[in-house]
């Protein structure tokens, strides 16, 4: 496979090791002499710590050491940093309370780390942890974001009166008010975007190791971005220079955002290893994951939409309260602002948009980016309010969307909420989806289902997302404390084989295949001679990792830029060898040729010459063929699409069956369609999970996590889901050389609103206007009972 491999469904190269049990996840790594850490966590949502007595634990059998926050404070260990500064609309900076690695005088959520026990085995560490005596003063807690803003609510931080972290706004409030005054029709909706637990199947894990001979610290961790962890932990927490800190993120068993962030346990094991003079390994049990992995979503929103007499949207007004949890996780603050408010134009020409977001502290696990991060929340409210408008106006939801789409010939398109979309064709993806879902034939299916006693509904949602995160200059101006470029090294070896060192990180995305296809195609060499290396800061250039559907658009482009440098140097070497002018050298099909002649040198010959430079233009060039490029995109990419759900509700039980799910997406150019389809499937499953099954529930009075295991948190299983019907329509991204947009989050963004709209469509005959997520059987049964007490289909 060489040129022409782009667009092919090539089987993944990484699969062999995973299918034979030979993957290397963090928990599969064992370092000589390692000890095991167990973290004692708070059982309370809000409590003062009066005293921690670790003496019995420290003298328990086979215990190596016990540490508390005081030990870390004595070493002047810093707090976990937040990577994004958001300012309130009055210009004041967000409230940024400290985030100690181990709690000091107070715990602020169930699961807050209080102490660490290091022992010869995990069982012994856990046995000893039960002997730690913590004297708590338990105080009232607040878990619900809207409740946190109420007067008299328990306060999470003294520094944040009223639990307010920031009160942010975007858009032209005056223009929006004016549009509402002149509107022919306005519609409103209150909705909740339910809190989710990411639940990558591999629980987090970390191993800290210290080499006294070299002074080098190594952290093996389940991370989506090892360089980011090295920067944050080294610079802000442990005060270690990058040159003495190596972070390795080996095979990682899924992330979905939850493994972007710098977590306490990474700092604990790295800090503890030299203190106990042994490698220290920590692995999360799933129960710990539920109370220590950053959660997602958790918004409460009011939305108003104004329309003119021609049913064109004239203004959108959104007011959201977003839960931050007890501490600010790494990228928490940008999620309900710059990844949310900026997307509220959606696929529509709405000329005026105003959004305000109040971010609040509560006594819950921190909330941060989870698959889609802000964009699912934006899409959900937008696509719900559009359906409400269609319902109240009595027009077809597809027709109302068509009427308001940004036309395909209007790109680049400047929205009223900062973004400039470069390309798209929303009409075509919608028509493709409508046709695939047989939207026109739905009414007959509804009636047939009605005869079987079922309520059947169809719902559609269009979406736009800003991916390929992101231009550093843009995000920097918006408060990001990091750049968001990507880096790649293309290392050509003497015989012409190639190693790609990428700053992107794969944890399921198939980069070892997709990136290799890209390189095979551009360099005209067999895919078998290409190796992709990622995940180890000691090997790869400084890159920002994988999230926000950015790996191909940003990381792949960095590879292309590095390959461009390789080809440019190769042409110089070829010109020298072929005694031709560099301007006459063409590179095609893996050969450097003199234009218009049959004289050529293969890629391998050029590589060999670069490393065995007996005949080499030393005066013009250095030997070697090894190039690095950093790519910082000019703009976000804007994948878009239309999703259609068709469902049936059993009125007796409220149980939902998804009869059909159709997704039509525009991801720009597609390198490996099989991998892209897999990304969409997975996103859809998480989106459908949010809509129907998943909801993180805290006890409102005690702050206890009620959905702390798979016994209570409903994960989508195979028999909850349908097979999906997918199609794509391509418009190319205009500002990256590959024309790619990204596909990882689309499913999770489009699906919730499509399902919710289908549910409301099914229940519309009963007068039901909205159902909250997750639309559990009881919730739907109750809605049916309340609207039509005798609706049971007897």
């Amino acid at each position: 496979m060489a040129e022409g491999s782009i667009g092919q469904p090539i089987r993944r190269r990484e699969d062999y090791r995973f299918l034979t049990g030979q993957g290397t996840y963090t928990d599969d790594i064992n370092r000589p002499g390692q000890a095991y850490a167990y973290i004692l966590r708070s059982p309370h949502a809000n409590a003062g710590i009066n005293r921690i007595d670790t003496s019995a634990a420290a003298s328990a059998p086979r215990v190596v050491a016990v540490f508390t926050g005081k030990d870390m404070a004595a070493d002047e260990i810093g707090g976990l940093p937040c990577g994004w500064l958001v300012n309130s609309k009055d210009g004041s900076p967000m409230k940024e309370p400290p985030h100690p690695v181990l709690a000091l005088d107070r715990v602020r959520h169930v699961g807050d780390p209080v102490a660490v026990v290091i022992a010869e085995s995990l069982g012994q560490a856990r046995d000893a942890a039960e002997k730690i005596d913590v004297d708590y003063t338990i105080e009232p807690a607040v878990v619900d974001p809207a409740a946190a803003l109420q007067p008299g609510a328990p306060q999470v931080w003294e520094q944040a009166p009223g639990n307010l972290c920031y009160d942010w706004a975007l858009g032209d409030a005056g223009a929006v008010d004016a549009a509402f005054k002149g509107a022919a029709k306005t519609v409103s909706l209150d909705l909740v975007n339910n809190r989710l637990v990411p639940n990558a199947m591999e629980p987090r894990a970390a191993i800290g190791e210290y080499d006294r001979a070299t002074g080098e610290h190594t952290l093996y961790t389940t991370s989506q971005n090892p360089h980011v962890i090295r920067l944050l932990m080294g610079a802000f927490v442990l005060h270690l220079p990058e040159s003495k800190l190596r972070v390795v993120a080996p095979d990682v068993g899924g992330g979905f955002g939850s493994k972007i962030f710098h977590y306490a346990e990474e700092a604990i094991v790295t800090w503890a290893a030299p203190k106990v003079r042994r490698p220290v390994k920590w692995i999360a049990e799933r129960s710990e994951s539920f109370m220590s992995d950053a959660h997602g979503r958790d918004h409460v929103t009011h939305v108003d939409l104004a329309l003119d007499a021609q049913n064109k949207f004239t203004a959108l007004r959104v007011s959201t309260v977003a839960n931050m949890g007890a501490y600010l996780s790494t990228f928490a603050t940008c999620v309900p602002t710059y990844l949310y408010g900026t997307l509220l134009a959606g696929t529509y020409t709405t000329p005026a948009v105003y959004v305000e977001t109040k971010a609040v502290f509560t006594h819950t696990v921190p909330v941060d980016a989870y698959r889609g991060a802000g964009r699912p929340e934006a899409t959900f409210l937008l696509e719900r309010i559009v359906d409400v408008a269609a319902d109240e106006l009595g027009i077809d939801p597809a027709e109302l969307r068509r009427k308001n789409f940004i036309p395909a010939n209007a790109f680049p398109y400047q929205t009223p909420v900062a973004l400039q979309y470069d390309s798209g064709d929303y009409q075509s993806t919608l028509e493709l989806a409508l046709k695939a879902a047989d939207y026109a034939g739905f009414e007959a299916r509804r009636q047939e289902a009605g005869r079987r006693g079922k309520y059947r509904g169809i719902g559609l949602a269009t979406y736009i997302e800003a991916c390929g995160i992101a231009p550093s200059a843009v995000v920097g101006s918006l408060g990001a404390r990091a750049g968001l470029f990507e880096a790649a090294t293309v290392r050509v070896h003497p015989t012409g084989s190639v190693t790609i060192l990428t700053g992107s990180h794969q944890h399921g995305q198939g980069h070892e295949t997709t990136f290799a296809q890209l390189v095979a195609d551009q360099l005209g060499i067999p895919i078998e001679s290409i190796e992709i290396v990622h995940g180890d800061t000691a090997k790869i250039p400084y890159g920002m990792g994988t999230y926000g559907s950015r790996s191909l658009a940003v990381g792949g482009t960095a590879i292309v830029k590095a390959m461009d440098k390789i080809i440019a140097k190769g042409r110089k070497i070829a010109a020298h060898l072929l005694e031709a002018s560099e301007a006459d050298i063409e590179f095609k099909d893996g050969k450097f040729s003199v234009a218009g002649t049959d004289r050529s040198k293969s890629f391998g010959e050029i590589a060999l010459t670069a490393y065995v430079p007996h005949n080499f233009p030393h005066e013009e060039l250095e030997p070697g063929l090894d190039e690095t490029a950093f790519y910082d995109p000019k703009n976000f990419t804007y994948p878009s699409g239309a999703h259609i759900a068709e469902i049936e509700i059993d009125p007796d039980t409220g149980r939902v069956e998804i009869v059909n799910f159709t997704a039509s997406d525009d991801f720009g150019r597609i390198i490996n369609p099989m991998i892209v389809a897999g990304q969409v499937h997975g996103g859809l499953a998480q989106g459908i999970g949010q809509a129907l099954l998943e909801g993180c529930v805290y006890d409102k009075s005690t702050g206890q996590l009620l959905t702390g295991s798979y016994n209570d948190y409903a994960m989508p299983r195979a028999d909850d889901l349908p097979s999906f019907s997918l199609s794509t329509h391509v418009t190319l991204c205009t500002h990256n050389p590959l024309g790619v947009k990204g596909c990882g989050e689309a499913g999770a963004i489009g699906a919730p609103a499509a399902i919710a709209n289908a549910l409301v469509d099914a229940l519309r005959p009963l007068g039901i206007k909205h159902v909250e997520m997750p639309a559990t059987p009881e919730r739907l049964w109750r809605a049916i009972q309340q609207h039509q007490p005798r609706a049971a289909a007897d």
Partner: protein
Amino acid sequence: MQKTVSLTVNGKPASATVEGRTLLVQLLREHLGLTGTHVGCDTSQCGACVVHVDGEAVKSCTLLAVQAEGKNVLTIEGVANGDELHPMQEAFRNNHALQCGFCTPGMVMSALDLVKNNPKPTDREIREYLEGNLCRCTGYHNIVLAIAEGAAVMRGEAPPANPHGVAAE
């Protein structure tokens, strides 16, 4: 209290000295170095740890190592024939039925158990049989396709046309 457990793993005799509370999955991963079997939860639900004991799928996180005394255990490491993948493993590759790979060993072991009990499962039966195996990456769509293909090949039939356009090797 330490006990020595002797059993057969992937066709070879194995033994280890473990605590009474040691789980079979810990014996496999920590004592025998067979790290292909994974632990994804602590409530016996996710199925990442499924292995075969005496030919039947069980959750190795819900069996004490001492309970496996004298048993014949098959883990994901013992499924392929040397370098040649088992048809079910091959079907997972052909259908992109794995992404992060963490649930995959348990999925393959459950799939083999299904086919043993039901050589020609329908898609619905496949989905129902996977009740004890969670995957967060694939949405199960491609896993269902893969198990149908793997079952067909195990029955000695030609695999169904690849729905992704993957060329036969």
